[in-house]
């Protein structure tokens, strides 16, 4: 079975490793991510100003195009997932805005696509128990902290991804891979998001708190679903290290990279060169190379 797939800008460049590993794994799992034609940036933020129709046009156009090709649209990036899912729901529920948007983009989209996150395919379409049976190299002994961030979960009423205060889907995935999921209170706290552009120090501080909380609870690695989060909690570890001298960096994986290891993909195809903190020493230590 094929899934219509919207990669989003960052997965096309700075998070190629996220995109590629997802595609490779899907083939091993018996489905293909069919890339949406002529896709554009989703806008990277769902407009919270209720009168900002302009910011809805890009995701609306993506949705309308996707509807011409299928009935569901899959994303990997948590931010894209959020923007696209919320826009879809808005088009579905707000007739006035729907008409306005359709007028602008010269389409007649009604909001009837199913919006999926890759993790939802793994859980609901394949099933974690099925997935577990397909694991070739269990991630035994790897203590990994599933970091949800914000966009998968909130607003809960619209995202419907998992429990808003204590989600477990991501941990269930890690356990299926054979890893030991580290429970930590900051797993639903914000990484600082776009403040990495507005107030970088604030984002660094947010990331430090999240990493610190995970490490304190025994994590050896972080797992992310979002290139924005990954930038803040992975790439900013050098900044954290400068400010907090005793901070010990830990690698941050995209969940598809861990899926790739477990599925038996060659580690050299997992794009670790794009990770800021090198995960290879840890993987070697755990015998996962």
């Amino acid at each position: 079975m094929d899934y219509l797939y919207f990669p989003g800008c960052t997965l096309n460049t700075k998070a190629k490793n996220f995109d590629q590993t997802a595609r490779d794994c899907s083939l091993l799992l018996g489905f293909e991510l069919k890339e949406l034609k002529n896709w554009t940036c989703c806008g990277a933020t769902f407009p919270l100003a209720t009168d900002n129709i302009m910011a809805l046009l890009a995701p609306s156009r993506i949705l309308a195009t996707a509807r011409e090709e299928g009935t569901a649209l899959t994303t990997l990036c948590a931010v894209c997932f959020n923007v696209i899912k919320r826009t879809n729901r808005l088009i579905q529920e707000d007739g006035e805005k729907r008409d306005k948007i359709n007028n602008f983009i010269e389409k007649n989209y009604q909001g009837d696509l199913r919006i999926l996150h890759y993790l939802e395919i793994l859980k609901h379409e394949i099933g974690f128990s099925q997935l577990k049976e397909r694991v070739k190299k269990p991630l035994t002994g790897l203590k990994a902290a599933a970091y949800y961030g914000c966009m998968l979960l909130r607003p809960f009423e619209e995202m419907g991804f998992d429990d808003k205060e204590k989600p477990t889907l991501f941990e269930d995935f890690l356990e299926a891979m054979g890893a030991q999921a580290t429970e930590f209170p900051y797993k639903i706290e914000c990484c600082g998001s776009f403040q990495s552009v507005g107030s970088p120090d604030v984002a660094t501080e947010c990331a430090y708190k999240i990493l610190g909380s995970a490490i304190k609870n025994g994590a050896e690695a972080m797992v992310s679903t979002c290139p924005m989060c990954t930038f803040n909690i992975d790439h900013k570890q050098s900044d954290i290290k400068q400010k907090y001298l005793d901070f010990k960096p830990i690698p941050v994986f995209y969940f598809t990279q861990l899926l790739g290891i477990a599925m038996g993909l060659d580690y050299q195809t997992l794009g670790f060169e794009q990770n800021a903190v090198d995960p290879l020493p840890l993987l070697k230590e755990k015998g996962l190379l």
Partner: protein
Amino acid sequence: MKIELTRQKVHNEFAKKVELISGQNLFACYQCGNCTAGCPVAFAMEVGPHEVIRYTLLGLEDEVLGVNTFWLCASCLQCTSRCPKGIDIARVMDALRMVVLRKKERKDHIQIPEFPEGFLEKVPQIAFVSGFRKFLS
């Protein structure tokens, strides 16, 4: 330090604008402070989101627009998710940004030419695109 309240001030144009852009009823806020208590960036804010709402309701436009609170909001929606009165506080913060950015002076919150060297190469698109949407007029 002193506010002279009138009915015109309680229903001030500034608060009305914020309510209109955010789609939220500021009078619904009963100042429990949950938004501030759970805000991940409150540590860096000059006043908490609940205070911003209070100030806006009382028409203290200059004071509200002068604080860093809404610029620091990362739209993580934790406040929105937990507000007992169902106020989408993140929308209120965004509305305040919009009030500033839509003024004719077009005073941007960030200046791209002032980015440090190599910054643009380092930061992913996703951060730029959303950041520009939040900080530029």
